[in-house]
């Protein structure tokens, strides 16, 4: 999105740091801008060796669309899980599902796993060592293949387009 330069190796991180600093101080006086700016430049330079390769956001608009979709799905999934918990007969069909990943990069796999945990009645449990299978526990699932297809269509494909395509 923003090309990295020598003094700003991680521009998005720097922006986030400045924003968080201003939010924490709860002030936009010039002094806070300067202090936050200095921190936003120094911290990425110092912390650079700890970071893996930065993901590049190829389609920012799609990212916004994805975030909105996930926020909506979080509310829906919560109502669904609440209904299941409150159901006195406790009719659940739990299952372990092995999800075949097509994403390659660590960052996008992390985002996918977090999304899976937050949204459709599923919790990501374990990423196999080969990085190709994600073990998912689902609370109530009828057709396992349908669940896999839904996750692939709804979450993995957009992530693929945003981060990797």
């Amino acid at each position, binding site marked *: 999105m923003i090309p990295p330069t020598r003094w700003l190796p991680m521009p998005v991180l720097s922006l986030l740091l400045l924003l*968080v600093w201003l939010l924490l101080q709860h002030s936009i006086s010039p002094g806070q801008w300067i202090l936050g700016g200095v921190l936003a430049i120094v911290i990425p330079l110092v912390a650079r060796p700890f970071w893996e390769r930065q993901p590049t956001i190829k389609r920012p608009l799609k990212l916004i669309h994805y975030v909105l979709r996930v926020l909506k799905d979080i509310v829906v999934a919560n109502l669904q899980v609440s209904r299941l918990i409150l159901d006195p007969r406790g009719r659940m069909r739990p299952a372990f599902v092995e999800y075949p990943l097509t994403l390659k990069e660590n960052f996008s796999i992390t985002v996918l796993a977090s999304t899976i945990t937050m949204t459709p009645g599923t919790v990501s449990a374990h990423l196999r060592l080969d990085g190709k299978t994600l073990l998912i526990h689902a609370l109530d699932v009828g057709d396992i293949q349908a669940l896999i297809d839904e996750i692939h269509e709804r979450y993995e494909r957009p992530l693929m387009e945003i981060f990797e395509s």
Partner: protein
Amino acid sequence: MLDSILEGVIALTLIAGGAFAFIGSLGLTHLKDFYMRLHGPSKTTTLGVGCTLIGSLIYFSLREGPVIQELLITVFAFITAPVSSHMLAKSALHHKLKPDPRTRGNPIELQSERPKHTLEEEPQGDSPLP
């Protein structure tokens, strides 16, 4: 007029947050096995706390001008909750906790003949003890 509508919104978010958190904890207490219990706190409680924080944000913005600090905790909670529930599920698999008998699928991680250290990376080389 606008104030009373906003007050209604605040009351709604507070009560909805409390209800979600309570249902999540109810699930934590009532469900049958660990993997099912994990669903309540990881989703429902997070949204409940998020709702409460949004309510508090609107309340203080209404009283003392715009305040958006609470958004920080909300974002933090939504980013960290999936990570900690993933780690918890991983350690439960490592301890081979028995899932409910109705659970379909028998992941290789839960079968008994697996050697130790398979969930993490293999131990590398000789450990350099002093």
